[in-house]
């Protein structure tokens, strides 16, 4: 076979794979959006869900999803980034380091239902935080932390070596080189990793079933005192998130408009993840430009 023919075949196979990928994605997104968009209305987004009557909304669930996501990110990003920097820059290669690294990998690939059970045993039962925002966020931390560690380490490792040498050769300390040169340079790839993991956290349900719970108290969105039991900011109240809501409505819902609520919630979930990605990318681009100057 001539190399030209081989080249053609390889190219066709790659294009075919790309088409399958894009086609699947488009079909899936299209299905969810077409099915769900009609059920989305301002009323749907801003009214609380109803346990047995038709016409319930998803206000509380949407808020809970965002709130759990934010708490999880506050817990994981700083620790994860520091851990990644440690592994990439300070850890001496050896048995201990590779042991830590494989622990991180195993932790990142744990099935989320297992993480959920672990969260229930530790945070819900042992620490007695019950089904709560905090228990949920901590359970999500268990599998999100290693992901952030991983993307940070990879971001640092993919930087050209001469950047680090350049900093050290100017008489900067190792830490100052990391802080002022390497971290800003690795920022775009770390941000991409954070966005991807945030999408996963936002859509997670299995790990939250037994940690954040299947119910939400009647939230009073005018009461922002974090210690009040019905405050949206209270971390020790149970919090059914959007994806858990989809699951619970579908499996055990007794409302007459199950399909409408489930489809609408799914569409909102997908749209939120998309918006979140776009927003984070825009912010990332802005920060990157500020750090590195206009081209």
């Amino acid at each position: 076979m001539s190399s030209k023919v081989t080249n053609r075949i390889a190219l066709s196979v790659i294009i075919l794979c790309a088409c399958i990928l894009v086609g699947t994605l488009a079909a899936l997104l299209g299905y969810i959006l077409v099915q769900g968009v009609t059920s989305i209305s301002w009323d749907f987004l801003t009214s609380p869900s109803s346990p047995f009557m038709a016409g319930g909304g998803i206000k509380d669930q949407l808020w809970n999803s965002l709130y759990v996501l934010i708490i999880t990110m506050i817990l994981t990003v700083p620790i994860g980034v520091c851990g990644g920097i440690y592994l990439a820059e300070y850890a001496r290669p050896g048995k201990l380091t590779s042991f830590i690294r494989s622990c991180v990998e195993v932790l990142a690939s744990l099935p989320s239902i297992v993480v959920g059970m672990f969260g229930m045993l530790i945070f819900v039962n042992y620490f007695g935080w019950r089904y709560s925002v905090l228990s949920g966020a901590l359970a999500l931390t268990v599998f999100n932390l290693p992901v952030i560690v991983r993307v940070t380490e990879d971001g640092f490792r993919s930087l050209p070596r001469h950047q680090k040498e350049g900093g050290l050769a100017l008489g900067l300390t190792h830490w100052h080189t990391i802080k002022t040169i390497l971290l800003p340079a690795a920022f775009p790839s770390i941000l991409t990793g954070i966005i991807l993991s945030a999408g996963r956290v936002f859509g997670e349900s299995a790990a939250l079933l037994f940690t954040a719970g299947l119910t939400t108290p009647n939230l009073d969105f005018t009461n922002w005192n974090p210690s009040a039991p019905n405050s949206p900011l209270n971390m020790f109240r149970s919090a059914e998130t959007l994806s858990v809501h989809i699951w619970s409505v579908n499996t055990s819902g007794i409302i007459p408009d199950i399909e409408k609520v489930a489809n609408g919630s799914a569409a909102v979930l997908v749209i939120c993840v998309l918006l979140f990605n776009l927003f984070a990318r825009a912010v990332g681009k802005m920060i990157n430009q500020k750090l590195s100057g206009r081209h």
Partner: protein
Amino acid sequence: MIEMESSLLSFAKASEKETSVLIQVKDVDIYYGENHAVRQVNMPIHERSITALIGPSGCGKSTFIRTINRMNDLIPTARCEGHIDYHGINILSPKVDVVKLRKEIGMVFQQPNPFPKTISENIQLPLKFAGVRNKRKLKDVTEQCLKQVTLWDEVKDRLDRSATGLSGGQQQRLCIARALALKPGVILLDEPTSALDPVSTAKIEELLLQLKKDYTIVIVTHNMQQAARIADYTAFFYQGELVEFGTTKKLFTQPEKKDTADYIAGRFG
């Protein structure tokens, strides 16, 4: 062959004058793990002059230059024995504060490595770390350094643009300017022009001849013509050993060792 050598030397310094020794290298051995990369190097580095290290690839010249400001500390398996005396201090001593040392002995690398920041930040970064806060002072030093490397006129209108947008030659001059910001005593250059085109190379060579009035310069080059054009002293490395050291003129016209003669005549390497 002799003709070629003498034409090379028509560029070399006519005004060769003895200068005092700033760095004395004594019995330096460098190992990478089991590999004995550099053996028993003894040579002086003269103040306010250009010393070139030449030799074929893998001869240990880069390894050696990276020892002078302890950049080899970054390589966990690298180990160094012997003395490099600088102002009466042994640079290789574990007691030396490498951060201070590298402020005193700057380095420019083969691949231009501007930081992905603005042009002025590239120069101000080491200054800010050294504690300079005064905006006026930072601006003045930036201008002064960029003028020293003849980059000022090319970039003065885009100091707040990213340095990675500059051409390769401009980036390398920026890296030299950055190394000058801290007013080091010595500047080490590890093949600074091997990634550049001939015009940029010529600019850098001209620049180095200017800079040697104020700085002591050590340059690694695989380009013999370059050594002949700009260096006052030349050291020839081969297979991890310093084969011969002398004034550039002497090394290129009357080499004492056969290996040196063969190398500069282009018979190997």
